[in-house]
């Protein structure tokens, strides 16, 4: 294990940014998001959670797929190249690391149809995960088996008092460690970190949403069609305005749209985030299989809590990051859904 005083942390960031672009949780324009580091940036390492998740660094909100030219009856296509620039992200929380593991299932699971953009970024992006010491009121990562105090990633880091501790977890992490070693000191023994881990876990167990774990097991006891046809969806979905905010801030929501843009010189085909909460998401010329907000609302939560685990060996497509809890304009969210439909009152 290596360590560095927080007062010297700028030196660590400098070393890291020599390896590739370094992204950090940075405050700007009224929100905290992962942005490229530069000296003097308003880095927020205490902030749980960033307003936007780390998703966008690996699966950007929009990206070009290909450029087309049409001349008469002819069409030519110029594919965008796959990302290959190395970068590192510092300060990713355990829940967001899990978020990427969820996206890995969707984008990398099928060898015949890999998402080459996402793959390129995953192969070139190093994750330096930061353990949480004081979870927010909205955190419930524990319900999904995420350990806030022991994040996975290429490197795990802990901030205890005025010191940052650093431990490589993968080969890529080892390589990063070599790059930063000159500015770090060796730390023998883990007692300082161990005490902080325990405090963090205790804090999560005492957080307001700790009991969601039990409500979630109650979910599991129901079969899919029972949950799908629960009468509770009508009430739960009533206030949802279909704004899609919850899907944009969510680290695991991966729905996208594909659109063409006429540049005047040709056509750029790009993909961009989309939301199952939008009324036209499934709209076809022949009709819409999800006609009202009830069906769309139900889809989002059934997907995260039932369909996804059914497809991917029990893994939930929610990390308990709490973002949709603090961002929904009508205060509707997955925690309320789990409690209500899972059948545990005041859980």
């Amino acid at each position, binding site marked *: 294990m290596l360590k560095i005083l927080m007062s010297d942390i700028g030196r660590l960031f400098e070393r890291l940014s020599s390896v590739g672009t370094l992204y950090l949780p940075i405050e700007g324009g009224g929100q905290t998001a992962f942005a490229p580091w530069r000296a003097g940036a308003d880095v927020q390492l205490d902030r749980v959670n960033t307003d936007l998740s780390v998703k966008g660094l690996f699966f950007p909100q929009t990206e070009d*797929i*290909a450029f*087309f030219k*049409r001349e008469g*009856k*002819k*069409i*030519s*296509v110029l*594919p*965008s190249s*796959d990302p290959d620039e190395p970068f590192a992200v510092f300060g990713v929380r355990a829940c967001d690391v899990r978020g990427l593991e969820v996206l890995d299932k*969707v*984008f990398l699971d*099928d060898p015949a*149809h*890999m*998402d*080459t*953009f996402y*793959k390129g970024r995953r192969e070139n992006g190093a994750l330096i995960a930061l353990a949480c010491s004081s979870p927010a009121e909205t955190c419930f990562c524990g319900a999904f088996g995420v350990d806030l105090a022991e994040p996975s990633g290429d490197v795990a880091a802990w901030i205890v008092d005025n010191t940052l501790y650093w431990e490589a977890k993968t080969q890529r992490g080892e390589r990063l460690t070599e790059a930063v070693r000159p500015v770090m000191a060796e730390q023998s023994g883990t007692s300082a970190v161990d005490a902080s881990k325990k405090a963090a876990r205790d804090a999560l167990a005492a957080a307001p949403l700790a009991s969601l774990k039990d409500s979630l097991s109650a979910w599991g006891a129901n079969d*899919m*069609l029972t949950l*799908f046809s629960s009468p509770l969806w009508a009430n739960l979905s009533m206030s949802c305005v279909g704004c899609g905010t919850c899907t944009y801030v969510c680290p695991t929501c*991966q*729905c*996208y*749209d*594909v659109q*063409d843009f*006429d540049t005047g010189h*040709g*056509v750029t*085909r790009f*993909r961009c985030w*989309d939301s*199952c909460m939008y009324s036209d*998401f*499934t*709209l*076809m*010329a*022949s009709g819409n*299989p*999800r006609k009202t907000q009830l*069906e769309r609302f139900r*889809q989002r939560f*059934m*997907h995260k809590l*039932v*369909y*996804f685990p*059914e*497809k991917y060996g029990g893994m939930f497509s929610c990390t308990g990051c709490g973002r949709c809890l603090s961002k929904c304009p009508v205060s509707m969210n997955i925690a309320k859904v789990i409690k209500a439909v899972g059948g545990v009152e005041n859980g």
Partner: protein
Amino acid sequence: MANPLVPDIGLVTAIRRDTPDVKTFRVVRADTGAGVCFPHMPGQCAMLSIPGVGEAMFSITSSPTNTEYMEFSIKKCGCLTEWLHEMEEGQEVAIRGPYGNHFPVEADMLGKDLLFIAGGIGLAPLRSVINYVRHDDNRAKYGSIDIVYGARSKDDLVDIDEIKNEWSSGSGSSSGTATVHLTIDRAQEGWDGDVGFVPDYVKKLNFDTSKTVLMCGPPIMIKFVLAALNGLGFDKSRIYTTFEMRMKCGIGKCGRCNIGSRYVCKDGPVFRCDEMDSMPDEY
């Protein structure tokens, strides 16, 4: 590794008008000017697009036994399909695929008497499998072939020349015959087939329940035909159908086309009707 969202280019070599709102397009590889853009199995789909106009999923209407070209029977029902209906031969199109699963031609269908039931443009995906099983290379692998096909009027029957001149009498490398049962919704001059809706016609024909059924058509027709077949005593595990949902990626990633945990683009479009019992009614 190629980006699966980036299409190849195909060349439209022939366009046939089937009905007032359905045309069939013949497509070959643009780079060589011949051959299929990629191999496929009966029931699989492809994404066709005109850059700047749109991209959409269509079932591949031609049989895999045809390696000279691919065909798509497309109904005019939106921006892209209207554009395709306006285009002329020699036009290039962007194409990617094949997508989805296929009818179990090399599994459950082997050795079975086959009953195909189609309504309107629903004949498009079935034509691929009908011509596959009819082909002399494959014909011996299956029992009898019955085809029930209905449309609004006689002018709305897709591929009617092929049905009359080839399917009933055999032709070329598909010398075997099939029994074709045609129906239209309302009586019309010069029509000597049945008159009435497909589900009623299926009841009337009173087929032997040992047949394996493949049906395609509008969702409402599917529901009623399924009820009719149930009434006749057919087992749902012997009935296959296809579903349609809005699609963007075709590879189970854009999150758009799911029914429960199944993505129609990847786990479908072909489903066995007993699977429907374990799927939410959202199609």
